[in-house]
C-alpha cells in the first residue's frame, strides 16, 4: 500500500521535511522515493532518524549516480546513515540509530551550502514569472483593446497576476529564512525551525490559485471551442501535445538519470532541446492555421449564411446590392465586438457600408477603442495630409460625430454610455437613415 503527497518543500525547508518524514515513520509510513511527489510505503510504526541533505551546487539535471554524489553518499553511510532516495536536490538519508551523529553539525556550513544553491537556482526560478509578466506587458503594450472581447485573452493577465503573487510569496519566504539564518549565525544561536503548518498553508494557497486558473482556462476554452473551430482543430491538440510531450520527456529523463550516468549538461540539453522543438512546432502550427484560414468562422468565401446576423445592412437603407459580406462577432464576459463589411461584386453597386460595434462594461475600454480607431483613421488620412474634422450632434445620451474623408466616404461615430459604433457608408445618410441606425443598434432613440 502506498501513499503519495506533493513535494511542496523548498530547498531551505530541508529541516521541516526531515521532521515530517520522522513523524510519518512514527505513524507507520516510510518514505519510498522522492521526486515531484513524496511516495510512502507502509511499515511498522517506529522511530527513525531522517536527514535531508543538499549537496553543494545541486541540480535536478545531475545523474543520480554521478561520481560526486556516490562519493558523498559513501561518506555518510560510513558514519551510520543509509541513503534512501534523491531528486537531484534533496538527498534523503535515514538511520534507525536515533543517537547517530547528525550529518550536519555546523549550521553555518549548512546555511552557506543552502544559500549558494538558493541564489544560483531557487531565486531565479521565483523571478522567472515576474520577468515573464514584464515581457507580457511589453509585447501587449500596443495590443488593441478589442482583445478584451476574447475570454481566453482575459485569462492571461489573471494567470500572470496569480503567478506573480506566488513568486512574491516564495521570494519573501526565502528572504525571511535567509535573514533569520544570518542573524542566528551572527548571534551564535540555533537556526529557527520551519513550521510544517505554515508550509502546508502556503502550499494550499498556491494549489488553490493554480486550480482556479486551470479551471477558468478549461471553462473558457470549452466555450470558445463552440464559437471558433480553430481552437478545437489546432490549438487544443497543440496544448495536449505539449502537455503529453512534457510528461513523457520528464519520465524518460528520470529513468535515464537513474540508469545511466549522463552528465548534467547532457541532461539539461535534453530538456532545453525538447522545449525549443515544442515551441517551434507550436508557433509554426499556429501561424500556419492563422494565415491559411483553417477553421476560421467568417471567411468571405465560405460562409454559413444562417450564422450571420448583422444589425444593419445596405438593404435597411433601401439598396439591394450584389455583394460579398464579411461578418464577425466576438463576445467575452466584459466586452463584445461586431464587425461587418460589404464588398461589392458589381461595378453598378452604388451603396455599401461597413461598421464596427464595440461594447464594454468598463468606460476605459470604450475610451481606448475610440482613441485607437481615431488614431488609425488619422494615420490612414495622413497620406492625403488632411486632418479629420468631425461635426458633432447630441441627442439624449447619444453623441454623433460625422465627417467625410479620403474617397468621399462618410464616417459616422455613435457613442452612447459604454457602446460605440463606427459606421462608414458611401452615401451621406439622411435623418431617417440615421434614425434607422440608432434604432437597430441602440434602441428607439431618434435623432
Amino acid at each position, binding site marked *: 500500500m502506498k501513499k503519495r503527497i506533493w513535494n511542496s518543500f523548498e530547498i531551505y525547508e530541508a529541516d521541516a521535511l526531515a521532521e515530517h518524514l520522522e513523524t510519518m515513520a512514527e505513524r507507520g509510513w516510510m518514505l519510498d522515493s522522492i521526486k515531484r511527489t513524496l511516495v510512502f510505503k507502509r511499515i511498522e510504526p517506529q522511530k527513525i532518524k531522517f536527514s535531508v541533505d543538499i549537496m553543494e551546487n545541486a541540480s535536478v539535471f545531475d545523474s543520480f549516480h554521478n561520481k560526486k554524489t556516490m562519493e558523498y553518499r*559513501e*561518506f555518510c553511510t*560510513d*558514519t551510520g546513515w543509509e541513503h534512501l532516495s534523491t531528486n537531484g536536490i534533496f538527498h534523503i538519508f535515514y538511520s534507525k540509530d536515533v543517537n547517530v*551523529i547528525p*550529518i550536519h553539525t555546523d549550521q553555518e*556550513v*549548512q546555511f552557506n551550502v543552502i544559500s549558494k544553491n538558493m541564489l544560483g537556482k531557487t531565486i531565479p526560478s521565483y523571478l522567472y514569472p515576474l520577468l515573464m509578466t514584464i515581457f507580457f506587458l511589453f509585447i501587449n503594450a500596443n495590443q488593441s483593446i478589442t482583445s478584451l472581447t476574447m475570454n481566453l485573452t482575459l485569462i492571461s493577465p489573471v494567470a500572470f497576476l496569480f503567478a506573480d503573487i506566488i513568486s512574491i510569496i516564495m521570494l519573501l519566504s526565502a528572504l525571511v529564512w535567509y535573514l533569520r539564518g544570518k542573524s542566528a549565525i551572527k548571534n551564535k544561536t540555533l537556526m529557527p525551525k520551519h513550521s510544517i503548518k505554515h508550509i502546508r498553508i502556503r502550499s494550499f494557497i498556491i494549489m488553490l490559485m493554480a486550480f482556479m486558473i486551470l479551471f477558468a482556462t478549461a471553462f473558457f476554452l470549452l466555450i470558445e471551442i463552440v464559437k471558433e473551430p480553430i481552437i478545437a482543430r489546432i490549438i487544443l491538440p497543440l496544448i495536449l501535445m505539449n502537455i503529453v510531450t512534457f510528461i513523457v520527456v520528464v519520465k524518460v529523463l528520470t529513468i535515464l538519470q537513474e540508469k545511466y550516468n549522463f552528465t548534467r549538461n547532457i541532461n539539461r540539453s535534453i530538456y532545453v532541446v525538447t522545449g525549443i522543438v515544442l515551441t517551434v512546432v507550436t508557433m509554426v502550427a499556429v501561424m500556419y492555421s492563422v494565415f491559411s484560414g483553417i477553421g476560421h468562422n467568417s471567411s468571405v468565401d465560405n460562409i454559413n449564411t444562417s450564422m450571420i446576423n448583422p444589425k444593419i445592412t445596405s438593404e435597411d437603407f433601401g439598396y439591394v446590392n450584389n455583394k460579398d459580406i464579411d461578418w464577425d462577432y466576438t463576445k467575452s464576459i466584459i466586452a463584445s465586438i461586431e464587425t461587418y463589411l460589404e464588398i461589392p461584386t458589381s461595378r453598378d453597386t452604388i451603396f455599401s457600408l461597413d461598421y464596427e460595434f464595440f461594447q464594454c462594461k468598463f468606460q476605459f475600454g470604450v475610451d481606448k477603442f475610440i482613441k485607437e480607431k481615431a488614431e488609425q483613421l488619422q494615420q490612414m488620412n495622413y497620406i492625403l495630409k488632411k486632418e479629420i474634422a468631425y461635426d458633432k450632434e447630441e441627442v439624449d445620451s447619444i453623441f454623433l460625430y460625422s465627417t467625410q474623408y479620403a474617397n468621399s466616404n462618410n464616417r459616422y461615430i455613435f457613442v452612447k454610455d459604454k457602446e460605440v459604433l463606427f459606421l462608414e457608408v458611401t452615401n451621406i445618410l439622411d435623418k431617417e437613415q440615421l434614425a434607422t441606425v440608432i434604432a437597430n443598434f441602440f434602441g428607439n432613440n431618434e435623432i
Partner: protein
Amino acid sequence: MYYILLALLKPVCGVEISQKAMEISENRIQIGPGTLYALLGKFEKEQIIREVETVGRKRYYQITEKGYKILLDEYRRLQHLVREGKPFLDQGV
C-alpha cells in the same frame, strides 16, 4: 577547523578524520559527515589540505605547508590565551 587539521597531520580518509577528531578532543568534538565533506572541499580549494591518494571512492587527505602554518598559528594563539589567563585564574575569586 583546528581538530580537522590536527587529524590531517598524517594522511587520513573521510570517516577516519571525524573519528580522529573525536579521539583528540576526548569525544567533545563531533563532526557530521556533511559538515566534514563541505569543509574538506573548502580546505582543498584554499590549499590548506591536499589529496594524497585515492583508493576506490575513498580519498586520502593531508595537511599542506600553508595549512600547517595556519594550524601552528592557531596553536600559538591558544597557548597565548592559556598563558595570559593562568595568573589571574590561579588567584581565584
